[in-house]
């Protein structure tokens, strides 16, 4: 490791807050995109399942 201590790593000669903020924001945005994608997938699958149920119900009792 380049830094001699954890404090030095966090402080980064005064640039720590800028650097850590950028990395934290990037990871937050990426995690947000992944979570959102999974949530959309789940919602779409629920709608698919209810569409399939409807179709089966219609097949069982044709009007």
């Amino acid at each position, binding site marked *: 490791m380049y830094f001699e201590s954890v404090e030095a790593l966090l402080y980064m000669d005064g640039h720590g807050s800028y650097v850590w903020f950028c990395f934290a924001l990037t990871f937050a945005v990426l995690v947000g995109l992944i979570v959102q994608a999974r949530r959309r997938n789940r919602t779409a*699958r629920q709608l698919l399942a209810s569409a399939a149920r409807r179709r089966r119900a219609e097949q069982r009792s044709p009007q």
Partner: protein
Amino acid sequence: MANWAWFHKWGSPRWFYQFSGRLLPWLAVPGLLLFIGGCVWGLLFVPPDFKQGNSFRIIYVHVPAAAVAMGAYMFMATAAAVHLIWRMKLAAMVMKVVAPIGASLTFLSLVTGAVWGKPTWGTWWVWDARITSVLILFFLYLGIIALHQAFENREAAAKACAVLAIVGAVNIPIIYWSVEWWYSLHQPASIKFIGESTIHPTMLRPLMATLSGMYLLFGWLVLLYTRAEIIDRERNTRWLQDMLLTDRPADSAERGA
């Protein structure tokens, strides 16, 4: 006579859904490893820049976000052209899902750039050609998202967005060469396709890791969102219901992700 079978195959949501499912882990695993590994490498093991000190480490998230934001736009504009020319449904879905991902990455590049600017240039913001053209890129993405939501009709929305995406593509070469044409605060590119890069190999290697990682993660996200879009649009089709709901009753399928 060219064989266009592959093109029609790619345009089929059914084939794409099956193929992309197999591709997902090959993008997610190396993408996450390269991106996280590159970040740790760049934060902990690379010596600071002799002029900028430690603030230069922001490069490891700023450059991948900015580069992939631009690449994503070109990808979206290509999908838009494919949709307009061949009326390919899948291309319209891809175009729609890329916009929010691209907007997020552009937002990241603007904010990380501003935060990098403060300790380096002494200012958060400057209306120079590079930064302004990236801001325009952000507004183009937002415009495409808004235009999509403005239409009731899905076909009309896709057509309008495709035209905007293609027209907006003129901004991409402007962003790319802005640092050469109007030299101001933002430095020119350090990584060059032609000629020697002006960044030391010890600093370049982690950047290559985060950059390639970000491209893979982008590909992964595009597949994930496109798959959700396919399920959403094709939920009344027999093939999709059979594929996703076989071997289990419909009720328990709701829990699967």
